[in-house]
């Protein structure tokens, strides 16, 4: 999906030149490409404070992901154009860091910790049990868009290992059964997120 990002040579050239000059990119109109539109207001609001900041790229991507839940192709293109970074660099940075994801996550992001403390407390068994119950692998989302299963390197709650994090909530001293019990009925009818 993301390879298609590179099919924008005209834009890339302009943006690169602009950033080399250290000035903001001129407002180009790309006929027939989605970026002919200005960024949607929410995205524009995220990007505005970062204009002209040479070190803003990662922060901007983090804020976009926090808002939208993922980084879409358009988001990356807009970041490149609005902040004046080469698209290749935006893409390179976004794919380097583990935090960034490029598809919308399910309603509940389930992160099983695979840090050392959780490993010696057998968090792999929890991962396998949840994977079986949900019928998806790591970094996959259930067809009903309820759950995305992920692993994380450590949440810093190692003393309560093994740890599972559901959206923002950290659950300590988990077992495969307790973890599934905590998830099973989330987001079902009548349940409120």
């Amino acid at each position: 999906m993301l390879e298609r990002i590179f099919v924008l040579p005209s834009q890339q050239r302009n943006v690169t030149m602009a950033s080399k000059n250290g000035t903001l990119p001129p407002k180009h109109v790309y006929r027939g490409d989605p970026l002919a539109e200005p960024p949607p207001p929410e995205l524009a609001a995220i990007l505005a404070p970062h204009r002209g900041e040479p070190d803003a790229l990662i922060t901007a991507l983090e804020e976009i992901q926090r808002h939208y839940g993922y980084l879409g192709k358009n988001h990356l293109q807009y970041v490149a154009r609005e902040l004046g970074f080469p698209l290749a660099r935006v893409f390179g940075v976004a794919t380097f860091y583990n935090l960034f994801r490029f598809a919308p996550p399910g309603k509940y992001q389930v992160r099983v910790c695979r840090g050392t403390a959780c490993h010696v407390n057998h968090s792999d068994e929890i991962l396998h049990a949840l994977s079986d119950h949900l019928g998806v692998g790591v970094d996959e989302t259930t067809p009903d868009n309820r759950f995305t299963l992920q692993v994380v390197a450590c949440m810093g709650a190692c003393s309560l290992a093994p740890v599972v994090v559901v959206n923002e909530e950290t659950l300590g001293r988990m077992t495969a059964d307790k973890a599934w019990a905590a998830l099973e009925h989330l987001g079902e009818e009548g349940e409120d997120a």
Partner: protein
Amino acid sequence: MKTVIRVGMSTCGLAAGAQATYRALAAAIHSRGLPVTLQATGCVGACHREPLVEVAQNGASILYGPVTPAEVNALLDLHFGAATPSPASDWLVSRHADRRDYPFLGKQVKVTTQLCGVIDPHSLDDYLAHDGYQALRQALTMTPGQVIQAVKDARLRGRGGAGFPTGVKWEIGHRQPGARKFLICNADEGDPGAFMDRTMIEGDPHRLLEGMLIAAHAIGASRGYIYIRAEYPLAVKALHEAIDQGRRYGVIGQNILGSGLDFDFVIKEGAGAFVCGEETALMRSIEGFRGMPTMRPPYPSEHGLWGAPTNINNVETYASVPSILLNGPGWYSGMGTARSGGTKAFALAGAIQNSGLVEIPIGLTLREMIYDIGGGCRDGKAFKAVQLGGPSGGCIPAELLDTRIDYEDLRATGAIMGSGGMIVADETTCMVDIARYFLTFTQDESCGKCIPCRVGTRKLLNTLTAITQGRATQADVDKLAGLCNTIHKASLCGLGQTAPNPVLTTMRYFGHEYRAHVEEHVCPAGSCTFNGNTIDRG
């Protein structure tokens, strides 16, 4: 006097359910109309007993845990009921203010974590009431040279892993010409299984800021970056809040406390890359690039962020400085060994009875740490090894438990002091699998820039996986040592150079487990399966 009830609400407390306990306490105090101040604090470190509740009443302080919402009323009855307090229940942790009756806490010497779990981390007034920013005031009356000398005399060494003398680093920074200098605080805490920095920042964020401000004065820096993992949202929030408070109070910004010092902070959230804990990669990441390490020299002290001299230290290193100035370098160095002064915090976790944050004087033995403080292995299992330093460190077996916790002594075992991760493994942990686990991690986190690390860690991992699946021979095991040597010698940065450590130490101390896997196709710990379709554990 009003009674104060404190609930530990750090990430670990919340994971154990402290939020519900806090709400139940608030409701019960309200409905009974009790004269109680309820406070949310950081973590005192006894995470294994969380949710922890401290009741400070009439000059006494009693610590309870775990306290579930259902037990809240019984707890309040003890202190406000008709009966005299006689908490015989199994949730009494300690009834003495110095915690001498609970060895896990009583045997520790807390310096950087002294206020964690004691003060409300959201309150600047609380910090000020405990000598907050007094060390900064004192430093501003001293010359930079005097501050640096004090840090040198304290024999403070970098707590991020390598143990470089902090005073020497600051002196190099101070000597650099030019007015454009930066400080960086490394709060990336990438070792999976470590949580010292998180606990400190969540529990007492101003101490880190104060330490950095003192460093700014000593070095002559004008801006400080705190690079912190995005996995620590509470700590990030605590820092933002503390910086705002500090600005209003006048210790951050222009002309700090009327001294002429200008200094401000920028918080940069990491985006989940272990290699970004390495200082040159970290700087690339702050600049907004992929976190790829570069060759040293030049060292950051001379040529760092955007080419300017940059002093980079770990959270704990900076946080040690205020106490050094207040109590004197002699007090600090007196606590350590001949070569390293002071205390070090460890995140004790794994198969240990009492897991949590532990701060001890450098020079204590591993045995004291694991048995006196940690209470030995959980569920009566036998101790097998302790892992220090995470993916860069090594496993130390039971025979070497009398080793002192000191940079040089630990290095002699093949492990390292590391940043403070200390994971205990019991008899059910396979040591080949532990090595394989760490290599899965380093192989995944290798940035790919240099070949020895990128290809070498993959080869190591393949062999280790084959051993744990019973597909390897003794010849494969024999090749590991040479491969480790190549990776160690030829890699560009610390990630690759230290990646073989988990393999080398397990081969050295647990060679019999490797042999059992390849010769007899059995896993002595009973954790590997040999039917050829073991699952890839990501």
